[in-house]
């Protein structure tokens, strides 16, 4: 498609379960970003890929969070042993080259941990 696609749009999981969130960036976009948006807050940076290389993962809140982009296109954000505080909207964005260029956002995955 023409835009950034995220799946699933909604995910409900029980505390302790593992979840995987998928992001399909715009074709040809080199950079891919993951953000976490808590209710009523602005997005907060999680991690950044340039092609398949994860150049910055400083925003990942704990070692339960893991992201990959093995072929430099689709990316997966995995959260292990989910906790209630992981409930948020997870946004993916891509840009043609780097963070100084406009980022194109997907509609996000709303994760609810029961």
């Amino acid at each position: 498609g023409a835009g950034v696609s995220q799946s699933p749009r909604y995910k409900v999981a029980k505390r302790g379960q593992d979840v995987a969130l998928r992001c399909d960036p715009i074709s040809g976009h080199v950079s891919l970003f993951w953000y976490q948006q808590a209710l009523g807050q602005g997005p907060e940076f999680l991690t950044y890929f340039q092609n398949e290389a994860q150049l910055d993962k400083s925003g990942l809140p704990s070692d339960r969070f893991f992201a990959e982009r093995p072929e430099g296109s689709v990316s997966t954000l995995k959260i292990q042993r989910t906790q209630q505080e992981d409930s948020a909207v997870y946004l993916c964005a891509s840009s043609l080259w780097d963070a100084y260029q406009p980022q194109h956002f997907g509609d996000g995955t709303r994760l609810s941990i029961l």
Partner: protein
Amino acid sequence: AQSVTQLDSQVPVFEEAPVELRCNYSSSVSVYLFWYVQYPNQGLQLLLKYLSGSTLVKGINGFEAEFNKSQTSFHLRKPSVHISDTAEYFCAVSHYDKIIFGKGTRLHILP
């Protein structure tokens, strides 16, 4: 460290009236600044960006913003709002390989 402060969490304004959404940033280096809009249950859409050059930046949907280096501000303005402008607006600043977002301002359009 860079940060962004959006001074108003909510701004009510009558339809067809002008509006200004305030944003201040802190940075020790030159910055790139952005305004994004988020409609309910959607991702963020770029309204406008300041990278360099003219301090008055025009964006989509009739919005514009003015970069003021001395006041470290990047306020967003629109001369006449429409009901369709109801949304959350985020100011953001670049920081190396990431973008730092403010907490957002919710724009309420009153009939």
